[in-house]
């Protein structure tokens, strides 16, 4: 878009210059056609153009003038008229001074004053118009740059937000659990440290790949679950079932963990007592069907962050497969169920 604007700007500039040169040439031949000497005709065109450009420069400097909303206005036109009159008066006076003894040229200047004024008016009008358009394009351009910059910032903020939501709370609570375990159950404290570091390491590495095998992702989930189980104790009951023939399927990386985290968050925070979470992965036809469900209390009103993890997964699927129908959410018998369909992608699941 920006490039297009720039291109238009450039083309327009070339066109205007060509137009001016063409009119100048026409004027020159008109002078020559009226039996005016080459020297006089040439100097006439030159200084007419000089004064015209000089006055367009002045016009361009008049800032308030350019703040008008439209390119054509009464003020606009009258200023151009006055300026072109000035230019033609100056050129006339100057040309008469140069003409000296040249009777033909002298008469020509006398007779054509108004015609020349009109031509100058038109030329000045074109130039000013072009300057006005240029200015607007520049403004648009700047606005556009600002917009993309804003979008970039938004994307960055979203990214930070994602990390913020996911990490610190989880990490610090886990560390607190380790702190409690150290004295009570040193062996488990050590296990927790390994689980936590494994989990963090995998998060960093996996984030770099677009796809991973189902079995890899399940390992990662087990890792994550081991930590959450220490934090929430016996309350948290998770069952993971996966068809054996699905294990080597390629799925978008880190797509299951946010779903599980979401289920745990709403299960644990929304229900008092034991929380049952079930994850099922099956191959159906050419698709992988994933369902994850948690108990929830429909009457509980959850915090403002509802569905944050779900949205990020949906967006990711949309980006990777260009489809918006891959995630469905159902609520049945006080269970919150998220169903995913992962298509057999020719590229990633070729074998």
């Amino acid at each position: 878009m920006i490039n297009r604007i720039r291109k238009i700007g450039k083309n327009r500039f070339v066109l205007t210059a060509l137009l001016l040169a063409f009119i100048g040439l026409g004027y020159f031949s008109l002078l020559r056609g009226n039996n005016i000497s080459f020297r006089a005709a040439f100097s006439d065109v030159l200084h007419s153009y000089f004064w015209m450009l000089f006055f367009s420069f002045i016009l361009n400097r008049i800032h308030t003038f350019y703040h008008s909303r439209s390119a054509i206005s009464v003020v606009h036109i009258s200023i151009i008229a006055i300026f072109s009159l000035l230019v033609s008066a100056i050129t006339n006076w100057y040309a008469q001074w140069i003409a000296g003894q040249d009777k033909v040229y002298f008469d020509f200047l006398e007779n054509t004053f108004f015609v020349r004024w009109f031509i100058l008016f038109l030329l000045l009008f074109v130039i000013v118009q072009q300057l006005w358009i240029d200015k607007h394009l520049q403004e648009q351009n700047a606005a556009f740059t600002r917009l993309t910059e804003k979008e970039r910032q938004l994307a960055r903020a979203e990214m930070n937000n994602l990390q913020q939501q996911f990490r610190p709370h989880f990490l610090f609570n886990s560390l607190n659990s380790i702190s409690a375990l150290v004295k009570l159950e040193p062996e488990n404290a050590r296990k927790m440290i390994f689980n936590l570091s494994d989990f963090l390491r995998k998060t960093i590495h996996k984030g770099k790949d677009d796809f991973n095998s189902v079995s890899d992702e399940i390992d990662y989930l087990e890792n994550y679950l081991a930590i959450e189980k220490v934090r929430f104790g016996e309350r948290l009951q998770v069952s993971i079932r996966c068809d054996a023939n699905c294990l080597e399927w390629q799925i978008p990386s880190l797509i299951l963990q946010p779903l599980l985290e979401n289920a745990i968050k709403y299960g644990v925070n929304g229900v008092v007592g034991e929380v049952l979470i079930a994850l099922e992965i099956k191959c159906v036809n050419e698709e992988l069907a994933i369902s994850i469900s948690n108990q929830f209390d429909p009457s509980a009103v959850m915090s403002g962050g509802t569905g944050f993890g779900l949205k990020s997964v949906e967006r990711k699927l949309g980006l990777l497969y260009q489809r918006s129908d891959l995630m469905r959410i159902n609520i049945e018998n006080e269970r919150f169920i998220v169903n995913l369909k992962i298509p057999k992608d020719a590229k990633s699941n070729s074998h």
Partner: protein
Amino acid sequence: MQKVILIDDEPLARVLVAEYLAEFPEFEIVASCADGFEGAKAIAQFRPDLIFLDVQMPKINGFEMLEIINEQPAVIFTTAYDEFALKAFENNALDYLLKPFSEERFRQAIQKYQSKSLKNVTADVSEMVNKFPEEQSRIVIKDGGEITIIPVADVEFFEAYDDYVKVNYNGKNFLKKKTMNFYEKVLPKNQFIRVHRSFILNINHLAKIESFEKNSYIAILKSGKRLPISRNSYSDLKHALGL
């Protein structure tokens, strides 16, 4: 003997506080609770001197729990929330322990409590609650022994009522000790409009606006209730409705 209650949804977090506290024989843990409801009940039952309270918990968060209990014990927050959200407490006669916290830090908090610098914190809590996202989506109300959680989006309208605000939800009124200005500030501006000094209206419950005398309007809700619209807020309302 000082009575203490621990309220945290993670069992190990409670274990840790209990372990640190064992060093101080003058404290006795009378209850250990896994959520805000249990906590509120235990506080009413045991009237503790001091509670250790987590912020993010099932059902209602720590601040919401403090709002609904009648008698405030001294509070030490234990939380994994970052400092910024809780910074406000530092000068406000409250203490908070950021998880994971050391035994030294824990001792400092106990000393602060023992030097009697932990005071009643109702006002601060009220301020704090709206810093957490929950407050924008739900309102916790205690009516006698019953606790009701109202989804903000389903509130029909708010009405000023002396020192209270009447929250009109499901055809019933619930009293909340807050001000109209508080709600006007906290509620989502595109959905809740202060149509009158005494009323904040949820535009999703608006059925129509009727003209009433010259330059005067009345909002008619889907439930059939009628609310006056003050002259100044009519344009706000129109703006919110995209007119």
